[in-house]
């Protein structure tokens, strides 16, 4: 059984290194985390650094996918409105998937779907 935990945007807003570690702790607990919103590039590297610090014989690291939404045909006022909302409240479009590497072998993205390739023989801690 694989647990998928949903995290609202409020929990990643202004993600500090403490927040990154919290996120990693959830993923380390054999759980695939689905975050609303996207990590910023700097947050992605923070997550990678934190992951490297935690790697041991049981925890092999993570699979990570930051997914942007497909471009919509919105234009004019709707597009400006979205830009303002993103600037003020943070980028809530898209999502971020974080899964432990001992469960998730790979994450494949294409414009229409996300595929999580699972490891056949999971090593439980």
């Amino acid at each position, binding site marked *: 059984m694989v647990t998928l935990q949903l995290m609202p945007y409020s929990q990643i807003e202004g993600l500090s290194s403490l927040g990154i570690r919290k996120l990693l702790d959830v993923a380390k607990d054999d759980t695939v985390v689905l975050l609303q919103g996207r990590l910023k590039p700097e947050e992605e590297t923070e997550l990678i650094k934190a992951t490297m610090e935690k790697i041991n014989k049981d925890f*092999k690291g993570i699979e990570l996918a930051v997914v942007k939404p497909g471009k919509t045909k919105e234009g004019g006022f709707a597009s400006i409105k979205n830009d303002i909302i993103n600037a003020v409240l943070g980028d809530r479009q898209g999502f971020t998937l974080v899964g432990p590497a001992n469960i998730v072998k790979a994450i494949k993205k294409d414009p229409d779907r996300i595929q999580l390739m699972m490891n056949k023989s999971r090593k439980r801690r």
Partner: protein
Amino acid sequence: MLNILKKFIQKVFNDIFSHRGELKLGFYGPPNAGKTTLANKICMDWVGEEIGKVSEIAHETRKVSVKGEVEVEHDGKKLTFAIADTPGIATKIDYEDFIKSGINRAKAKQRAKEATKGVIEAIKWIDNMDVVVVVLDATKDPYSQVNITIIGNLAARDIPVLIIANKTDLKKASIKKVQAAFPQYDVVGMSAKKGKGMDEFYEALFALVG
């Protein structure tokens, strides 16, 4: 504590690159993309010695290697680089993969430990680069999150980027796929191992920083 560490790293870095006028040229990318092979080729061509060891097994480079005063000439123009070959950036490292590659258990565990430190070191050095060559294996999916993370971080820091679609000597290689994944960047196809595409590489590098 973190600030002290950051300042210390900055000082060490500045001491290494104390020669004025040197452009700090970093080689970044996922493991086994050919960063060291390309850095070696450049160093051999211009200073007559290699920067690091190359291996088929991933994470051969586990520390940042620096070669200063590398004077490169192209089309009558000269530029001096301090070349930094960095460990491959990854989100996972499994010592059992090294065992499968023929390394004994103790050495595999040690290699994995050093590789995790190498990834952290490579990320810390990003801020210090003037220009970065991102080396990608053109036989692999260019949309991997590590590639996107590296290039996204360089863009966020306004560091000029040149992308190399390496290993074009292999049948599966596709420069077009790499170009399609990163249309806003210059992509040069090459085989660092065979030394193919070096002229195009220098042309693009000089256009970027010259």
